[in-house]
């Protein structure tokens, strides 16, 4: 039996000089073939055509130039290399990037022929020096920042309206993120010049776009496909609501006490109760009409102011221990009763 061992170097052609073979035992008793070893190789019968396939495999080009990325100078101007947005080109980028998920232990795939690096939008055209040159170039078209707008209050005073919008980096067949069309307009309610009726109507029109704790009105628009369109729409909404709140409809005069959003002592039964009580305590009971109740001057009643404030507080601010206590004190003063003894 003979053991035929072949040694290969990966990128070299199979040359006859590399073939070595050993013979452990020969089939022939005599050794006339010894002579042949020195002359020529043993011609192996290649039924499966293995050798041809191996030969075909190693047709490698040897005339490839080395990568441009390997030859780039360290201090080159990157802005000249990558002037605009471009799909990732591995040979032009001198960075040893690796991108992609692999199971544990393996190294992520390199940058050559990496589809993932090519898919994603890269911002190699926006490196800081490039951005800086662009800004310098734009500066000639810009005016300087006004000096007096040096604090938040100054900015808020002169520019009360804030427009809020977002830009997104989107990775998908389209580079446009649908959320980037959303535009918000924010303004402080106190910056809008509204009178009492207009303010009430404005608040009712805009509904829950008003935040009571901060006093900000936030109008958001996302119904148009483009940001510019939404921006126009938002401005239109603010204008429309503002001017509409000054219009007084005919039926607004029919507002009843139940529709009131705050409690007004002077329009309510508590005032009548107070007046009736006062008259009764002086034994001057008389039936009065609505106007007379309204015209009655409650300042002549002792402690009426305190009482009025206490009742309004309970109704407007809600019931709590504090408001009830203030009401208690006010009523006791009004009715002439002793104040509650402090609990030990």
């Amino acid at each position, binding site marked *: 039996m003979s053991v035929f061992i072949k040694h290969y170097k990966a990128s070299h052609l199979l040359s006859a000089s590399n073939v070595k073979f050993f013979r452990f035992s020969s089939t022939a008793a005599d050794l006339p073939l010894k002579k042949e070893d020195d002359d020529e190789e043993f011609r192996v019968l290649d039924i499966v055509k293995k050798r041809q396939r191996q030969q075909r495999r190693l047709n490698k080009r040897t005339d490839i130039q080395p990568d441009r990325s390997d030859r780039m100078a360290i201090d080159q101007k990157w802005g000249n290399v990558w002037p605009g947005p471009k799909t990732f080109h591995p040979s032009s980028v001198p960075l040893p990037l690796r991108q992609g998920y692999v199971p544990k232990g393996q190294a992520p795939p390199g940058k050559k022929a990496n589809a993932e690096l090519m898919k994603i939008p890269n911002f190699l055209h926006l490196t800081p020096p490039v951005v800086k040159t662009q800004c310098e170039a734009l500066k000639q078209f810009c005016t300087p920042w006004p000096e007096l707008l040096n604090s938040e209050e100054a900015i808020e005073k002169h520019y009360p309206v804030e427009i809020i919008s977002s830009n997104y980096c989107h990775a998908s067949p389209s580079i446009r993120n649908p959320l980037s069309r959303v535009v918000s307009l924010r303004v402080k309610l106190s910056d809008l010049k509204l009178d009492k009726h207009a303010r009430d109507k404005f608040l009712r029109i805009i509904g829950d776009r008003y935040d009571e704790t901060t006093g900000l009105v936030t109008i958001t628009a996302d119904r148009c496909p483009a940001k510019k369109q939404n921006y126009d729409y938002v401005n239109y909404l603010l204008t429309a609501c503002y001017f509409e709140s000054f219009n007084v409809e005919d039926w607004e005069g029919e507002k009843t006490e139940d529709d009131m959003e705050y409690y007004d002592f002077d329009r309510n*039964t508590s005032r009548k109760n107070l007046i*009736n009580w006062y008259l009764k305590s002086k034994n001057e009971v008389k039936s009065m009409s609505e106007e007379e109740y309204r015209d009655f001057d409650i300042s002549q009643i002792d402690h009426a102011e305190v009482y009025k404030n206490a009742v309004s507080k309970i109704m407007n601010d809600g019931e709590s221990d504090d408001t*009830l206590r203030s009401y208690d004190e006010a009523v*006791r003063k009004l*009715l*002439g*009763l002793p104040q*509650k003894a402090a609990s030990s």
Partner: protein
Amino acid sequence: MLSRSWRHFYRRYSQSVTFRTTENSPSQHNENQTGLFYTMDKDLCKTLFSHGGFPRSFAKQTKTFTEAAVMVRRPALDVIDCIKASDLNKPAVRYLLYGENGTGKSLTMAHLLHYAFENGYLIIHVPWVSEWLRRLPRHKEMSNSATHEGMVDVPLDAAAWLFHFKTQNQAMLKSEELKISKDYVWSKRETTPAGAPLLALVEHGISRVKYACDVIDAIVKEVKLLSDSKVCKTFVAIDGFNCFFYPKTRLYTSTKRTVKPEEVTLTHSFLELTKNDWTNGVIVLTADQLAIPEDHAESFLPKYLLYKKGFEHIDPFVPIPVGRYTEKEFLSCASYYRDRLWLRGPAEIDTELKLASAANPYKFMELCAPL
């Protein structure tokens, strides 16, 4: 830690802390007696509270403890002070007791009733409004009111209340000082003439149940006139007043339509009574969460329970909060229960019970039951 163990030490020795006071007259009660129990006379209890006035659980306790003992607490003393200091020539002042469930509003009212009885007031006491508007035995007797169009009467309840009124004010009614001002014609053959004693009206209402609600109406008017003319001073006590202002009742007409409280004649009578257009009177009311269904009883604060209408009806009123037991009151109550053999066990149980019941008087009583 030191103070806790000191208190613990103190409590061991003060197991027999004074929890009773011998002062059984509410007019004499003052700050010294806060937290102490005073006993009510059995006859007094029968006169005042035989048809209501004590909460049901308390009535059971009086049987077990063989006495009715009420704790003197700050809210009651507050109201008594105000009554003493107020000028009865001015319109009637309204006091509203409010607080969490089980803190003692009804018992405070019982204390005040005792005070009123002692000081010769004419007592108009409604033990529990929900009894009329929300208690529905198998068949609730209701009838359409004859005198008021579209309104509903509850004759049996009205008659029962008239009986209660009569028992409470027996002495005063018997003395025949209270006379009616005008004629009341019930039917072709029945009239109560002017100048007749109030007792006659009451008895008529009890005997002729059909006219009971109208009798109550008449009584209210008469009492207001009598108080105004200084013949007698009146003490009005209504427990569960907020039930009158809840949007619905549990009554329904023969057509299965739910009746609103405004459509019941009794509501009108008592709302008339609680107005402040009369002098020489005191009005004490309670706003109770238990008077209305649980879904709508989220808060115990007066304006929430009374709704705007009720608040405006009794505005200006004096709100009196009735709270949980203080340390001293809790100790006193625990000692009382031990004395009455209701609670037994080591002193550590007191701290446990105080935490478990959150010093709420009713919960404390409930927790002591199986111990």
